[in-house]
């Protein structure tokens, strides 16, 4: 309790993770995917999570964003105890503070690109959802494609729509799972630029999962995961940063 109070006082901390574990049941056995993760992320920080495939990065991200509950441990996002919240409350937290870019750029198939981008804005009851979405569409270079459905877009184009969608609410914290994973390096770089621009302009906290060394290097901080453990947490290169 004392610790919690202390945390809530420190307004600079956006994300506080204490001893989080995750276990899943497989048939009769119980499989531990995350073994006691501890993590703190400050406001405006950019953080890359790296690690080999299957090490638990996506699982961790889903817990941080409140999509799932930890088996034990605590997660505070903007001082909200996600681990105590039910699905409904976590949804509210997400609507308010969180943006998300999935590993598979899951768009809603029966909504157009533009309408997909508008979804979070509408959920957050932002008035000018459409004009914001149009602007973002232009930012990701797809202003001609607003009326197209996801199935009519290429993988990279879909990913850009997903990114525009994540930006529209100007979230306090943005989680991105392999945002450049399926893109060629040029598009990837463009997307990366967009991400960091957001961080610069609005102070959005970025939590990225990536295999891409170049992308990881642009982050202020890299943590490495291995079989469900946090191996290395390096705060590096605060100053040698990015952006043209």
């Amino acid at each position, binding site marked *: 309790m004392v610790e919690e109070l202390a945390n809530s006082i420190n307004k600079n901390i956006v994300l506080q993770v204490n001893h989080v574990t995750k276990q899943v049941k497989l048939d009769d056995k119980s499989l531990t995917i995350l073994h006691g993760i501890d993590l703190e992320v400050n406001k405006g920080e950019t953080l890359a999570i790296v690690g080999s495939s299957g090490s638990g990065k996506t699982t961790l991200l889903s817990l941080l964003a409140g999509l799932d509950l930890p088996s034990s441990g605590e997660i505070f996002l903007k001082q909200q105890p996600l681990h105590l919240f039910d699905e409904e409350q976590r949804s509210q937290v*997400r609507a308010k503070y969180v943006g998300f870019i999935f590993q598979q750029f899951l768009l809603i198939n029966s909504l157009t690109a533009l309408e997909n981008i508008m979804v979070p804005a509408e959920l957050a009851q932002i008035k000018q959802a459409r004009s914001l979405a149009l602007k973002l569409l232009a930012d990701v270079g797809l202003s001609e494609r607003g009326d197209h459905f996801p199935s009519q877009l290429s993988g990279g184009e879909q990913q850009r729509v997903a990114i525009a969608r994540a930006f529209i609410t100007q979230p306090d914290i943005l989680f991105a799972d392999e945002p450049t994973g399926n893109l060629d390096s040029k598009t990837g770089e463009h997307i990366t630029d967009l991400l960091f621009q957001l961080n610069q302009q609005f102070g959005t906290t970025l939590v990225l999962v990536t295999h891409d060394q170049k992308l990881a290097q642009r982050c202020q901080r890299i943590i490495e995961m291995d079989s469900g453990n946090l191996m290395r947490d390096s705060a590096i290169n605060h100053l040698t940063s990015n952006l043209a």
Partner: protein
Amino acid sequence: MSFIQPLAIQQSLRLFRHELRRGELTIIFLAIVLAVATVFSLTSFSAQIKTALVDESSSFIGADRVLQTSRVLPKEIIDYSQRLQLNMAQQVLMASMVFAHDEMQLVSLRAVSALYPLKGQLLIKQGENNIHALHAPPRGEVWLAKKLFQSLAVKLQDNIEIGDAYFTITGIIEQIPDASFSVFTSGPSVIINIADLEKTKLIQPASRVTYKYLFAGKPENIDKFEKWLTPQLNDTQRWYDIKSSQSQLASALNRAEKFLSLASLLGIILAAVAVAVAARRYGQRHQSSVAVFKAMGASRQYIKQVYLFHWFILVTLSLLTGLIIGYVIQLIGLWAMADYLSTSSQTFSFYSLFAAVFTGIICALAFAFEPLQTLIRTSPLKVIRENDSPINRYSLLKQIPALAALFILLWFFSQDLYTSMVLFFGGIVVITLLLLLARLAMLFSKQVGSQAGQALQLALANLRRRANENSVQLVSFTIAIKLLLLLLVIKSELINDWQAQLPDNTANRFLINISPEQVNHLKHFIVENKLAASKAYPVVPGRLVAINEEKIQRKVTKENEDKSNQGRQGIGRELNLTWQKKLPIKNQIIAGEWWQENTDKFLVSVEEKLAKRLAIKIGDKLTFQLGADIFTVTVANLRKVNWQSLQPNFYMIFSPNVLAEFPATYIASLYIPAEKEQQFRLFLSQYPTITLLDVDAMLRQLRTVISQVSLAIEFILVLVVLAGSLVLVAQVQATMDERQRELAILRTLGAKGRLLRNSILYEFLALGALAGLLASLAMEVSLYFLQTQLFEMSPRFHGEFWLIAIASGSVFVGFMGMLSCWKLINKTALYHQI
């Protein structure tokens, strides 16, 4: 909490608009449309057909209902019928002599009241080319059957004497709607006005008179009257409609009606199943969208509103479309049948409307309940791990709303709790058995698979891996095919049965009173003109006077006054006796044995129903009186007679030498085609003593009714086939969704398009063939029950339909499967789906 969010509604509309245009809602839309349209058109169409058929056929009894009695009806009955605004006509029937100059003749006299006939046409010829449908003759006039003009040597405008009164002949009877088809009516018909009956003084205390009271009117009034009347009837009164009239038509009509009800019920079930399958698919298809919405922070409330409203507009739209289409289908049906059937002008029934809307809503609520619930509960985690939530579990508990809905529909449409229970629980048992069989078949395919080619192996492996879902698919394929098959078989059997009863060369003329010398001339005429004819049966009138030495005169007479049926009136007075070496065709021995052709014993074969009524057993001694002679014979066998076959039928057939000494006349039936009509008349004119009974008009009417029924049945079958096909399509589509991802992966891994295509083709072909096989099996079992219990037909095995079922099952399912996955396999941007 539950206030409506305009944004959710807006989102819902947006999704709906796009999905509708992109064809993602087509199947569910069609399923509901079809369910509603089927119910709407089936209920109103079959109700109209039924009414029209009964209406049409009612002309065979001249009314909607007839009360036949041996005494005049109490006034209060007539009064009540008038209060219900029923039309009533009266008919008094008796045997009587008529006299003209020096000639006299025994006739069957009908004294009819002004409104007779209430249904059907009494056709009277009053001059050349002057045939009209008339009601009762004016007072003082009489209409005679054609042959009386010859035997009485009279012409139109002559006078004849009936009882104590004189009448002027003003018409020739061409057709009496409710003429008795009995071959042995007491004589040619004579019609007078009932008001003239008294002055003939024919009705004496001892005279045998039959009173027929004919009623017609609005169905609800008739029903009311019937409910009021029937409890007060006694043994001497008989109340009947066309269906209980024991005419040839009655059984055809009853069966047709049962078939129409059954077909409608099955059609509705199929449509409901299609909705259920499509609703499940609807739920599954929207899960990923819901997961994304939730991951973006949508509340459950929001999701609920988006998708409930989505479902609501979908259902409303399909319901309305279904009603319109149903109405149009029904109009088309009635229009197509208009030439054959005089349907009522009222083409819109509120009952059908209600039934259709009710069905649509029940389907929409109950079948969507579980899928929608699962959909709304979709975990947002699905955005990360596709197969996270265990949605594919078929828990029986979750299916309760759907099952309850199905039961309600069964009950609602059959209006019979017992039938619904039988169908429902029978269905559940069958489905459970089918599921087990399906699993077994999948297991069995393992053995086959090891010897098969690559594509086939892949197909069989796929089948096995998804054994659970496949069993469910297999069962729905099977049910659809089975129900279709069932109707198809019953339909063709029904129609065959009717046609077998009335082949083209069914006898349309009966010749009675043929003298022994004339028989050879007749035979010669028959051979010469290549006519189809029965043999000539000798007839000797005689009386059954004792059974086992016990006099039965009174017993039989009393029996006769009971609610005796047409054709049985001869018993108690004279019976037409005949003798035969061989058992006549269409007769069937049900107890004892037929005699040796050359037997010299005194034996008799008795019709089973008469035997039952008089408690006659094999070995009993029956004593007959023929004129002054009395002799006794032993009952050798009991015989079942098809009274509906148009050929001479007998209650008593003797062994050959019993009656050989008695003077006999002969009777025969034959078919005279139109082009032989002329020769036939010419032939008969040489033998004025032969009595001709013309049943051609009756036959024609019977045929019309049967072809109408057949047509109606075909039409309804089309609707049911549509419903069945939709189940198949919906199921194939649902199957496709499940394997979409997997296909994409296989393709990406480099599996050749052709290999995939073939494997899928084989898989679906196998599924379809298996479903066809199981369906045939299930059909045969259900058919056995239906035919023995419901339709009173003799069941048989239907090998040819097994082939049809298996072939069409595999072709249809295979084709649909290929069609749905063709696009999938050929997609280039496959990674979109991974």
